[in-house]
């Protein structure tokens, strides 16, 4: 297990990549943007972007419709 900071809170995860992390969190990747250590990750790089201990991950939801 790795300890990361997820949207400001400590979070334990075994996810090897951003794509797996989203899957474990049951988040539709089409509805969010993901930032890893202050860098926005392109959606097609989610599967190849590794999650390391100490990473700061921000998952930002879109709220459209207004």
């Amino acid at each position, binding site marked *: 297990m790795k300890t990361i900071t997820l949207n400001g809170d400590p979070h334990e995860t075994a996810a090897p990549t951003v794509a797996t992390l989203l899957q474990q969190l049951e988040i539709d990747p089409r509805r969010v943007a993901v930032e890893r250590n202050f860098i926005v990750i392109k959606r097609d790089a989610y599967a190849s972007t590794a999650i390391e201990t100490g990473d700061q991950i921000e998952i930002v939801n879109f709220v459209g*419709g*207004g």
Partner: protein
Amino acid sequence: MKLAWFSPFPPVRTGIADCSAELVAALRARGYEIDCYPSGAAHDFPWTHRQRPYDLIVYQFGNSSHHDYEWAYALRYPGLVVLHDAHLHHARAAFLLRERRAADYRAEFAWNHPEVPPEAAELAIAGFDSPLYYEWSMVRSLIEASRLVAVHGEATRRGLLESIPANSEADPAEKIVAVRLGHGDPVSGDRRQRARREVRAALGIADDAVLFGLFGGLTPEKRIPQVLAAMQALVPYAPSARLVLAGAPAAHYDVHAGIANGLRDRVTVTGYLAESDLTDYLAACDVSLNLRWPTARETSGAWLRALAAGVPTIVTDLIHLGGVPSLDPRTWTENGLSALGSQSPKPVCVAIDILDEDHSLRLAMRRLAQDAELRERLGRAGRAWWEREHSLEVMVEDYVQLIASATAHPAEPRARSAGSPDHFRSDGDRRLNALLASFGIEAPI
């Protein structure tokens, strides 16, 4: 009970920001756990709500740009919508048209008001805005998307129900409820005397002069031209009468240009006043003028403060103030008491018929300038009315009931159902990508 609270908060200078700050503090003291979401914090809401869902999301809406950011959340996450203005057309149209979303405005206008020819939307798009906006409320989408809607007072509720199209999906009569709006602080006799002495000394106004006051942002909608005309007509009857316009003039309105030569030494424009100074200026006045036309059916914060301070008031006789016992200055008989039956309280203000405004306003100002006993009586009755209808305590009591009612209603996002405008169902990523593309940036998502 865990609540999310969408609203502007201080230092934003609006009555709704102040109201939210007071309400949140009072409800927290009663054990509610409340997270506040002003515009700068709203982006944290989806994640927080996903991790630890709120029992209820509260949206405080007013007819200004401070609430633009709330729409997307209110349409996606149904909650309790509190409409401080029963019309939001100005703010909604300004938001959409500022973002060059004329097609979205057309679709939303047609969805909100199917009874109106859709070509009417073109008037606003062409710039013929303000009078048009008062005609149609543009709140259907919020009402249908919400779990419960609250407005201030039963008369406002009835007016809003009449403005909703008959073929609206939801049964608005069940979804719209009335709550009492609390605002203002009682002013002690000592403070009133001190304020009267100090403010009048600062303005060069004699202690025995009859001082009329008009408070808040200075706009033509507060009937300042009509007040100035009535003031001029009052002078022969009340030579000591003075007027203080206590607020900052709106950018589009040159208030000084409207002050006739004969009034220049009788009228003072203060500019913006801080909160505590505003209360002192109110307390220094003999009569508060709280007129408004046209109206988005909002309740004037300055009027409530005047009631709380025990200062007699002159208001415009508006539909949403229909339940307020008042005096008609043409006859000095009581308006609005029949519905209250034997429980009717004493008149708490003087109400001006907008169709007879110039005449009625002159009568009202003349009588109040000359009749100290009536001023005293109205001030006492106004204060009693405020304690019954507009104190923070009664508002908090109503919110406790309101929150309980809202949580009992289902949370179905009805405005996103088939038939509603496409942009209500948008997820936002298409627009984000389009915005980025306009800067030549490849969309990251």
